[in-house]
């Protein structure tokens, strides 16, 4: 049988450098192939070369791409006609891949109007049916909604719906769920693979996440620096990787560490009592603004040296709770106690003691470091307070801290000259240089590649063991939690729905939401 897509010795050049070299693979009709690799491995460039949409600066440099046996030359008219009905593509960023100025109905119809002879009402019916299929409630009226009225997961469904409307023979999904939380990720991936199967569409899945491969791909191809490392049927490839690099990727999947004895009955370090955080919803002109309860009457206690994972989907209030516990967002009711003393309403110098003992690591290392400061200034800055430490001592400690997080000798760099993982290490160094007693890690590894994530997690764990700070680890990913947490607290709709020791929660979840999260978590196969 003719393969839907055959890529033969494809090379892609960026100037003099080759970002993809001699890559060959084929996808049979209805088959799902996963291209796996870390950032910069050339997997996205390959996908874009297939559909002929290479970004400026990249160009095909030898090799052939054949779609159903016919060669696709870059920029040919054949290729343009194939886009849509032949090859569909779903992009990573649902926030930007829909045009915010147009209603979603109009955007979905575009492809049908271009490639089919359906009447106006026929197109509308097709859109409604497809929206219904991807799980959008009340599709007929939602056709008139704008993209900003939908959440990220919903937008990705709409994107998928508009691509699948044309029943393409090949669907390219470029990191389709990387920007989504675990639950939504599982739902969207189930939809993609379900729709592909229904329509007999072949799937080219681009991902850095081996967990996805295990669940959704028939074949897998591991890439590193533009070259193929290993290829073959997905399940055996993951179970018995032949190459060292594949093994490293498989090992980077989260794995449960040994349980530590529960924190002794020491005095709690930080205690939250019936805390609520509310925001006014934007009201209409003459209506009273409604109140949105991001965190609703939550109580939580953390003991010294304990690592507590706060888990929940987006919008569950977990990030808000983490920030409220550091007094970074104001709480509207309840108490916050630190070492037995109330700090809920402290301000000015009285708050400083609390600030000195608590730190935060943010999700996005691109925006949490001041781009105008050198790395060593960033790490030395916390040592300004409490006042009195001489300048050279501050820098000596900052350099020592950088050494500890594996960035020795990089102190003179600016953040933009570091990789994502290195930046997150800087953020960790900044948070730990003052030896805090309590650290909030807000999705601290969610933005990182799998192997980098593993390294950064290991660093965090090692530092936690050595310094013994208590940690609130905020995350949507139960897989990450397994590695690091002593206790797990699950949040939904601003309330805590379940909490308990890690193994108890993971092995015998009591609440439906926890079970759903667990089912969606992509963990090491077979463990």
């Amino acid at each position: 049988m003719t393969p839907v897509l055959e890529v033969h010795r494809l090379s892609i050049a960026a100037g003099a450098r080759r970002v993809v070299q001699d890559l060959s693979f084929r996808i049979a009709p209805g088959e799902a192939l996963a291209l796996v690799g870390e950032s910069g491995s050339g997997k996205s460039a390959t996908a874009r070369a297939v559909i002929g949409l290479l970004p400026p600066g990249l160009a095909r440099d030898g090799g052939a791409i054949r779609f159903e046996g016919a060669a696709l030359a870059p920029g040919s008219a054949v290729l343009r006609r194939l886009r849509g009905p032949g090859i569909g593509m779903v992009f990573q960023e649902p926030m930007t891949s829909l045009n915010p100025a147009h209603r979603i109905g109009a955007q979905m119809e575009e492809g049908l109007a271009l490639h089919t002879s359906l009447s106006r009402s026929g197109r509308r019916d097709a859109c409604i049916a497809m929206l219904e299929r991807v799980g959008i409630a009340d599709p007929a009226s939602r056709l008139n909604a704008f993209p900003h009225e939908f959440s990220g997961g919903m937008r990705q469904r709409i994107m998928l719906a508009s691509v699948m409307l044309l029943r393409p023979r090949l669907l390219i999904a470029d990191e389709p769920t990387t920007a989504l939380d675990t639950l939504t990720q599982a739902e969207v991936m189930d939809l993609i693979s379900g729709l592909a199967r229904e329509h007999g569409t072949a799937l080219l899945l681009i991902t850095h996440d081996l967990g996805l491969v295990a669940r959704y791909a028939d074949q897998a191809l591991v890439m590193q620096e533009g070259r193929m490392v290993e290829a073959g049927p997905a399940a055996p490839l993951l179970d018995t990787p032949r190459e060292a690099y594949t093994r490293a990727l498989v090992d980077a999947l989260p794995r449960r560490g040994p349980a530590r004895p529960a924190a002794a009955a020491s005095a709690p370090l930080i205690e939250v009592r019936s805390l609520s955080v509310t925001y006014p919803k934007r009201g209409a002109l003459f209506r009273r603004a409604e109140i949105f309860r991001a965190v609703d009457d939550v109580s939580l206690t953390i003991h010294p040296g304990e690592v507590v994972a706060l888990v929940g989907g987006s919008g569950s209030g977990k990030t808000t709770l983490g920030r409220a516990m550091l007094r970074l967002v104001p709480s509207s009711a309840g108490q916050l106690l630190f070492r037995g003393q109330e700090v809920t309403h402290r301000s000015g110098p009285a708050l400083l003691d609390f600030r000195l003992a608590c730190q935060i690591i943010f999700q996005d290392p691109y925006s949490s470091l001041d781009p105008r400061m050198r790395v060593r200034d960033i790490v030395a800055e916390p040592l300004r307070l409490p006042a009195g430490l001489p300048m050279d001592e501050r820098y000596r400690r900052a350099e020592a801290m950088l050494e500890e997080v594996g960035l020795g000798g990089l102190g003179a760099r600016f953040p933009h000259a570091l990789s994502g993982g290195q930046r997150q290490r800087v953020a960790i160094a900044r948070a730990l240089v003052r030896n805090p007693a309590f650290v909030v890690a807000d999705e601290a590894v969610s933005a990182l590649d799998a192997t980098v994530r593993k390294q950064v997690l290991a660093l965090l764990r090692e530092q936690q063991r050595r310094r013994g700070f208590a940690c609130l680890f905020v995350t949507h990913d139960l897989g990450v939690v397994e590695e690091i947490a002593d206790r797990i607290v699950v949040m939904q709709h601003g309330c805590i729905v379940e909490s308990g020791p890690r193994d108890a929660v993971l092995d015998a979840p009591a609440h439906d939401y926890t079970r759903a999260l667990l089912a969606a978590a992509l963990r090491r196969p077979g463990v």
Partner: protein
Amino acid sequence: MRLRPNLLIGGTLLGFVFAVAATALVWTPYDPVRINLRRRLVPPSADYWLGTDEFGRDVASRLMEGAVTSLTVAAATVVMALVLGMAIGLAGGFLRGWTDRILGAVNDTLLAFPGILLALGLLAVLGPSRWGIVLALGLAYAPSVARVVRGSVLSIREREFVEASRALGNSEGYTLLRHVLPHTAAPVTVLATSLFGWVILAESALSFLGLGVPPPAATWGNMLASARPFMGDAPLLSIAPGVMIATCLLGVNLLGDALRDLLDPRDGA
């Protein structure tokens, strides 16, 4: 560091203007305000390099003297507009709430006036004087600085490194100065260079209306203004200050572009 053409050309042009002004501080060929009615409107010669004006004053000397006055007035005005505008913009953008609303309302009202009209009104009250011009033009141009600064502060204050600074226990004032202010540098530099140009032009416009630096002191603006009746007979009278103004503006703009690039750590590294 790569040698940028902007930096080189801008630096050369502005360097020339500053050299002229510096020389004028210690030496000019003639006394720039000495009137010699017997030698009116003399064409350029070895004695009078650029000729003389309608009162027989040496144009070259006045041009040099004018460089000092024009540069001082322009620089002082820009500094004043920047200090005022940045204070308003930072306060409004960072504190938000009522402070921002009140400052914003006043600012928008001032912005609604053409700058030159505002300066005219102020000067009518203050009377023409060098520092009056600085004050009037400074106040007139501060609102646009405030607008630009407020806009960038509003976007920067939401970035996580600002929140990180708060989490470190840094005071609001320190956070503002250390983490927010430096990021306004790029837009403010660009604005400041164009302001410099506008001020030199505005000063000549005010001089033209008799509200500029009062005579007999020379500025490029009032030289240009008083040369107008003689444009046909002695074109050099208006060309000379015009060329100086153009040189100065071009130099400032090119240097401003180069500065903005240099100030960005992404390029500087």
